[in-house]
């Protein structure tokens, strides 16, 4: 009887310690991007104004797939993928996929000149205060999130995307 008690006591103590240490490790090491949006998360809703002065709110796109891109005019890899995004936007808009290209912290003038130069027709929300950029925990740009029709992030990448990749992404989030 006493021996059994001892085993129970030891097991309980070890389990308590294991759970506490496991949680600490999980929250520190394996989840150190805490605060940043990851694959599988619900995409945080945001509201910004776009280049034309229209209000853009992510939740308004429920039911559509959203190709959510964070970029800057001065970033070459962002520049490279823009023409492909524009091309695929034309193909997939009718199929219910929207592109939101959030500009990180730049002035309207710079962004407008850039958009004109590349003939971009998708909405470009301006994140002047970088609040949305921070909320999404963006490190390097470009960073692209694929948000499905339920508002869930199904892919996150920080690579400069090729035309093929963008096309396959569009297929993935097509509602």
């Amino acid at each position, binding site marked *: 009887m*006493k*021996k059994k008690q*001892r*085993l129970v006591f*030891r*097991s309980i*103590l*070890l389990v308590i*310690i294991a759970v*506490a*240490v496991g*949680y*600490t*490790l999980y*929250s*520190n*090491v*394996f989840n*150190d991007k805490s605060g940043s949006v990851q694959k599988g998360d619900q995409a*945080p*809703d*945001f*509201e*910004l104004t776009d280049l034309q002065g229209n209000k853009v*709110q992510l*939740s308004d796109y429920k039911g559509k797939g959203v190709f959510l891109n964070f970029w*800057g*005019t*001065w970033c070459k890899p962002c520049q490279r993928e823009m023409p492909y995004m524009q091309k695929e936007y034309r193909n997939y808009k009718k199929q219910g996929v929207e592109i939101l290209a959030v500009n*990180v*912290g*730049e*002035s*309207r*003038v*710079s962004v*407008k*000149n850039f958009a004109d130069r590349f003939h971009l027709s998708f909405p470009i929300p301006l*994140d*002047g*205060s970088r*609040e*949305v950029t*921070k*909320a999404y925990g963006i490190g390097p740009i470009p960073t692209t999130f694929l948000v499905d029709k339920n508002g869930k992030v199904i892919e996150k990448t920080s690579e400069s995307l090729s035309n093929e990749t963008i096309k396959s992404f569009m297929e993935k989030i097509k509602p």
Partner: protein
Amino acid sequence: MKTIKCECGHSNPFGTEICESCGKPLTNENSRELINMRYEGSAVRSQTYNKTIVDKIWNFFSSVKVGIWIIIVILIAAAIGTIFPQEMYIPPNVDPTTYYKEEYGTPGQIFYLLGFHNLYGSWWFLLLLAALGISLIIVSIDRGFPLYRALKYQRVTRHESFMKRQRLFAVSDTGISMDRVKRVLAKKHYRIKEDNGNILAEKNRFSRWGPYVNHAGLIIFLIGAMLRFFPGMYTDQTLWIREGETVAVPGTKTEDGQYYLKNHKFIMELYGKKDKEYSAALDKTGNPVPKNYQSNVTLYHAGPSDVVGAKPELKKERDARIKVNEPLSFNDFSLYQVDFKLNEFHRMNLKLENKKTGKSYGEIKVNLFNPKSTYDLGNGYKVEMVEYFPNFKLDENDQPTTENSVPDNPAFVFKMFTPETTKGETAFIGIRKNVEAADNKYKMSFSGIETKNVSALTVKKDNTLPIIIIGGIIFMLGVVQGLYWNHRRIWIQQRNGQLWIAAHTNKNWFGLKREMQNISEESGLVMPIDQSDEKSA
């Protein structure tokens, strides 16, 4: 469970070396060596069962040797981690994968590859700390409780060989007054227990609990450190905020909403002529010496919002001045002044002028963070901004571009419209770079710049501090308890017409011997002999 029954009738747990009650040695019974009194010869629990996996884990951590190895490994790892800077202290815009190699060569690369660049948050270092915590708990349980039991059940009359095999021991004739002995012992603050004319005099038993109190403190300390990783317990973030800007304070978002901060002004003061008492020292350095770094701010709070970026409805909390060591504290959070950037370009002023006459047709003020696309000067004079490069550079194809979005080196392409030149004339304006068509009639000329300062604040919150402080205090109490008092015991027994005396202390034998000398002088008791001296002699 097997027990060992001693001839005195007491049942001891399996593994016991000295009977808890009468002190008879249960192993090496016939030896004449001194008894090992560590843990009173009680059964260290772990060494006795080894059945299930739980027992095996338990027994591994129960070993003091294992515990010491864990400490050594932690010390070595922590020391190696200080050889090169940790990742958080290297410049923020460099790539750590290459930085350590370039800066410190091969040792730096090894340092990085083995994960020492982020040592104190790495999973294996945390596991080592956890192992230390487990070791402390198990070692204490396994030794503390049996020791407590052994001291609780100890009998006044001890077994013959227990007495003989104590380090301090003597036999003498009876015939001294036991009352006098007791009086002397009581004067020395011994607590006396009697049984059949035998005496056990004991003092400072509590000092034996010192190591366990100390371990408890250490475990509380480790728990406090662990709690840092639990949500809402700990925050340490940096916030750069320009003069005039209102930003969300990172880490302060809760279910009730979020704090915002507006920076009105950053002030840096230097010691000057007014500070006469320091004039000699100031003359000596020759360089300006800063006196004060200060941010004048207003704290706001906004209700909860599910939408990021939406303009929040700010409710003013209070105005404050944040100085070094004088943080703005609110609701567990503190904002400290930590850094600054002076004179960041904010606005550039330019004049539209006639090249020939030099006559000005008005000034435009370009906000470098948010320039307008058109500046109307009235009377048909107008300037359009065609291109804006906040941090101008030429790219590899000699095309104008910008390095990033910080306006450190602003450059513009303007189109100037006047009643005379209705089609517009184009000019490129940068700092010390003006490019324009030779036949342009008008030009933009630089007329001034406005700058703003930027404050850096850290947002701190540490709810674990009280726990860590309490853990530290308990730790120190344990150290003091175990170090400044010694647990001393003196046994006096009547045996076959002789008087047997044995004495034991857990440390500081010199002190015990001196005390025994004193007691024997005052009471006539014979001075026991140090049997370990005899052996070595």
